[in-house]
């Protein structure tokens, strides 16, 4: 196998880069051997950068006929034991869902990147977070979860490539990076860490590399026609997800100590919310920010721990309110949870978020519960 690009990198260096380019550069440094993709705004720079730089440094980089083909090439290439990835944006990721389901069941480690744009449908090429449900709740058919990482800076666009590949290999599971269009397009400083792929990429004795005489044949399949076998496979997968949930939760907590109000947001929305939280703090409002870094597994525990000291939680999202459901699960009905967000590719401003925080701190309940989630509350209450 071609590991030309898998040599140790030189000194970590600092560069000014677009998020998409930083992600692509990190992929090369992470020892990614194969990339299969199809152009779509706002992530085409990944394909373009890798075509130029990745090929030069020994990678197989292919623009193929569709996202459907791309994800199935990832299945084949990663199944053959290579470190392989694809990237796309929302409509393309929808096309990949069948493949991701097969990959999850056949337990093939790989990296999928979604630079989220506004939907539904063809939507808009502007940034959004509308693919949260699709990313975290499975997306395709059957009971499975990719590990989902949510970067909030260009630096993290790079960092999460290494982490994403390593977690994929560790658990033989697909990892999905869910970034939004703005993170792909904006330029920031990024530092590339020392990372020697050879120290990270494990042996893959399960891979289909050709059966030598002295081992059984390797079969990668998601077909288990006998119900008992299929249930057994499902149990194994669920057990793996439990382990992932126990070991891999990552989040960032800011100003948590004395907080009465907790703002929860991920990705770009978290950066904006962070700014709003600092502004609110300057006005004496006791508000904290929790930014999930892993969207699956979700940091429910931190919410559970904090719920008794909170007056309320505000979930800021660039969608119609998706992650709010997980926040509600986390606080278990103990405090009101309010949604604030923008859709269609519109990015909320720190001032708008500040306004919501102020309103919430003013009356103690926030400005009314997210109307479309009333049903969910009832169900929770019944369970309690």
């Amino acid at each position, binding site marked *: 196998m071609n590991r030309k690009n898998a040599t140790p990198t030189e000194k970590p260096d600092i560069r000014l880069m677009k998020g998409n380019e930083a992600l692509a550069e990190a992929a090369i440094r992470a020892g990614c051997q194969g990339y299969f993709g199809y152009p779509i705004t706002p992530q085409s720079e990944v394909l373009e950068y890798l075509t130029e730089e990745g090929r030069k440094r020994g990678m197989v980089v292919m623009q193929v006929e569709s996202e459907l083909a791309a994800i199935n*090439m990832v299945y084949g290439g990663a199944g053959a034991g290579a470190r*392989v990835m694809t990237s796309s944006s929302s409509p393309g990721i929808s096309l990949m869902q069948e493949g991701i389901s097969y990959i999850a069941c056949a337990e093939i480690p790989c990296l999928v990147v979604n630079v989220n744009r506004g939907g539904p449908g063809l939507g808009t090429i502007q940034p959004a977070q509308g693919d949260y449900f699709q990313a975290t709740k499975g997306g395709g058919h059957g009971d499975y979860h990719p590990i989902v990482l949510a970067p909030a800076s260009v630096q993290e666009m790079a960092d999460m490539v290494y982490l994403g590949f390593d977690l994929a290999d560790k658990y033989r599971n697909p990892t999905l990076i869910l970034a939004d269009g703005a993170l792909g397009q904006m330029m920031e400083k990024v530092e590339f860490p020392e990372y020697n792929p050879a120290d990270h990429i494990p042996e893959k004795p399960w891979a289909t590399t050709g059966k030598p005489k002295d081992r059984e044949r390797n079969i990668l399949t998601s077909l288990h026609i006998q119900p008992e076998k299929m249930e057994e496979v499902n149990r194994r997968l669920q057990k793996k997800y439990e382990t992932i949930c126990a070991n891999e939760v990552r989040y960032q907590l800011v100003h948590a100590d004395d907080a009465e109000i907790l703002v929860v947001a991920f990705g770009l929305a978290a950066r904006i919310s962070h700014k709003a939280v600092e502004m609110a703090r300057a006005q004496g409002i006791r508000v904290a920010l929790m930014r999930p870094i892993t969207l699956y597994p979700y940091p429910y525990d931190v919410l559970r721990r904090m719920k008794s000291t909170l007056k309320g939680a505000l979930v800021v999202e660039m969608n119609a309110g998706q992650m709010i459901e997980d926040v509600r699960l986390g606080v278990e009905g103990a405090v009101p949870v309010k949604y604030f967000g923008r859709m269609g590719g519109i990015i909320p401003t720190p001032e708008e978020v500040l306004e919501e925080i102020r309103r919430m701190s003013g009356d103690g309940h926030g400005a009314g519960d997210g109307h479309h989630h009333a049903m969910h509350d009832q169900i929770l209450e019944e369970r309690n």
Partner: protein
Amino acid sequence: MDNPREVEMETVSCPEGLEVVWEKPETLTGNRMHYCPGCGHGVVHKLLMEVLKEMDIQDKTIGVAPVGCSVFAYNYMNIDMQEAAHGRAAAVATGVRRMLPDKFVFSYQGDGDLAAIGTAETIHAANRGENFLVVFINNGIYGMTGGQMAPTTLVGMKTSTTPGGRDVETSGFPFNISRLIAMLPGAYYVTRQSVHTPGAVRKTKKAIRKAFEHQRDRKGYCLIEVVSNCPSGWKMTPVVSNQWMEENMFPSYPLGDLKTDGVLQPLKGN
């Protein structure tokens, strides 16, 4: 084992006075096949595995199984295999071949898998000249799902979704996809064979061997279409199904080479 009908076949030693004329190669697992009596799938599996054995490339070959009756091909082929989603075998094979450029790769697909749901992947793999072999079983029907129309179903042919026979106005024409593929510059060797007589079996095996040799020499994409029967789907006995195939399938899908050494061959039939 996944397949409830999967049973190890018995091995018998050769009685005295008799001569061994065929032995199961180690490239076959020995699991009893689940195919219906008289079905062509099993014969083609056997030929493929014999060729791997003869070329001594069992340890260098990765197969890609389709969704269709041959979905369990990996239960019989004693090699590393990947099971692809319905229609995506050519994309999966591309991924394998591109990441393991020194290995041998083939996909094994039915007509629904290759020429309906997987048409885009099929055509583009051929057009890129992917250096692998596609074995294409054309039985004119969807065997696995119970005998529905396939893209290759003949005009007038009855299936569960063309009960009055395929009519062109509703369902279009039988899809001669191998001819289409032969026209693509990326395709190096395209041939149409069958396995219904000993002579045909020998020719098909030769074609398979040739395709793997082309792959070894990095000549590019090879496609072997095997016009085959589906006694169950066609609702015929194996013997009658073979006669029916000769009389009805072969005129629409004439046997022979469509492209050899990158050169298109003169058209036969319609």
